[in-house]
């Protein structure tokens, strides 16, 4: 999958005639590619546009402009009907396991539904597949007559994952799939996702605001800030040689379970994320960057590099 210059602006409307007075630039000119079988982590603070990016990729949001090339087709411009057919290859796992399952449907029906809706199986076949998928995600097949409210968060998330797998997708957007879970359950679900990736040859886009889960699961990491990509590189590279000041700050914010490291030198970030309705001129991070110079306030840095992409006028030296 190839994402080119993806933009998603939300108009800000005012007055009785709903005049558009400005835009919230949730995703602003984002480009990256994902190779089959890999996991790309997407990290950033709340409101940086990572979820909007994820949702635009499966057209839960219609992008304002840009292209999402998948299997040779541009998802951003094809018709709804064509999109419906392609949806079998593209799935999404949601953050909140309490709102992602229809409370009025039994687990069995909920899981069989995708197959029946796309006429991919008869009722009996679907029931068989439901049994199989429940066991694959580590749940008993006897659960299929239960309702979602009878399950814990971790179990619900497994059901959500099972539902996404029913259509045998190629790519799954994991929209903060473990953020709402207990730490102990997080590990279980992450391991499950890893196992499933091997078993079904899946490609993941893994969205998270915490670095822990992302580090564990991702092959490459993309760091976003205010709707723009700041840095993109292999997981190891990002953690060992972060080049963007923002990445460095994110890494510092991630607690290290080692008391001797308590006094390590840290770059501390000050202030809040500026409003995406009025993003700063030049480099969007300059308002909070400890190294900001005049050029940062004037010129938008390009995303440059081959393996290790970075958008900064003054990358940290290695």
């Amino acid at each position, binding site marked *: 999958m190839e994402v080119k210059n993806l933009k998603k602006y939300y108009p800000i409307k005012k007055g009785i005639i709903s005049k558009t007075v400005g835009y919230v630039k949730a995703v602003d000119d984002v480009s990256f590619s994902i190779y089959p079988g890999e996991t790309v982590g997407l990290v950033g603070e709340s409101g940086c546009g990572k979820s909007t990016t994820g*949702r635009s990729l*499966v057209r*839960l949001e219609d992008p304002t402009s840009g292209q999402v090339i998948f299997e040779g087709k541009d998802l951003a411009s094809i018709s709804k009907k064509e*999109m*419906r*057919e392609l*949806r*079998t290859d*593209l*799935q*999404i796992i*949601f*953050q*909140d396991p309490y*709102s*992602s*399952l*229809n*409370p*009025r449907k039994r687990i069995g029906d909920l899981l069989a*539904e*995708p197959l029946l*809706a*796309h006429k991919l199986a008869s009722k009996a076949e679907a029931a068989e597949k439901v049994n199989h998928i429940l066991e694959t995600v*580590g*749940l*008993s097949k*006897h*659960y*299929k*007559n*239960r*309702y979602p*409210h*009878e399950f814990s968060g971790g*179990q619900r998330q497994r059901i*959500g994952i099972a*539902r996404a797998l029913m*259509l045998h997708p190629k790519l799954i957007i994991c929209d903060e799939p473990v953020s709402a879970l207990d730490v102990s359950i997080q590990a279980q679900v992450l391991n499950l996702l890893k196992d499933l990736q091997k078993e079904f040859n899946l490609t993941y886009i893994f969205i998270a605001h915490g670095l822990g889960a992302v580090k564990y699961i991702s092959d490459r990491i993309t760091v976003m800030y205010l709707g723009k990509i700041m840095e993109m590189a292999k997981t190891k590279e990002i953690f060992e040689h972060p080049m963007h000041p923002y990445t460095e700050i994110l890494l510092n914010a991630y607690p290290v379970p080692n008391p001797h490291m308590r006094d390590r030198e840290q770059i501390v970030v000050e202030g809040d994320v500026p409003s995406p309705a009025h993003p700063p001129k030049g480099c969007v991070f300059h308002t909070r960057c400890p190294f900001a110079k005049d050029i940062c306030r004037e010129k938008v840095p390009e995303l440059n590099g081959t393996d290790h992409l970075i958008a900064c006028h003054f990358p940290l030296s290695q």
Partner: protein
Amino acid sequence: MAMKLNPNRNVPEAADLTSKEAVLEELGREESYLHMVTRRFLKHKMAFFGLIVFAIFVLVALLAPVLAPYDPNKIFGDFDASPSSAHLLGTDQVGRDVLSRLIFGSQVSLTVGVGAVAIYVAIGIVLGLLAGYFGKWVDMIIMRITDVFMSFPYFMVILVLVSIVGPSLSNITTVIGLLGWPAIARLVRGSVLSIKEMDYVKAGVALGYSTPKIIFQHILPNALAPILVNATFGVASAIIMEASLSFLGMGVRPPAASWGNMLTEAESITVLSSQPWLWFPPGLMILLAVLSINFMGDGLRDAIESQQAK
């Protein structure tokens, strides 16, 4: 994976493996949503009372030809007769048996109540779903129409319309039904607006479900609870509406009996002061019907809301 045991269920001792599977299957099937709401509803004392009274009304209405001692329109020689063994509730001013008319009147009230509400709930659900789900100009148009309907003096419009199309049971039902939907439409629209942002609806889109499937199978069932409560109260107000129209002579046309037109006789001061058997029974019936339905509505709301709070 810990099996959630239901303490209320008798667990048969599993001997061999096959029956153990069966037990697991049985345990897995915890009580359904409907079951739970029914149980909570029946535990609600007022609601249970309301249900019984309402059930009696329904039975009486259905069995009216069997239960009524006389033909409701048959005229006996002695009019204005006080209750006696021949006429348990006496006779009215033209000499018809009050008890028989009362029994047949229940048919009118229930037909109008249930019929009108069925019509307007159907209209309200469809418009509310369309407005809430599609938003934008669809929402704009539907909600403005709703505002227009809500700004009419409801009773006056019904009165005028019924006088135009002519007072009859089916006309009253239809007119009330065609005018009652705005409240339901607003209620449904509101629920849909919040439900369509839920991830399970987004998941439906991502899974490639058709729009009608998402609207009717994923959104509507989750919006149904408040509609049901609202509809219950609607039945009570439709019954009152019919009684009021009949009282004003715009309802069911005499000689057909309705609780409302029976009350009309109480317009005369002599009836009001010295012939209570003519107006007290129909008045009491209206009161009981409306109260029992409102109690049911209250119980239903509590049963549903406590489930949601859980």
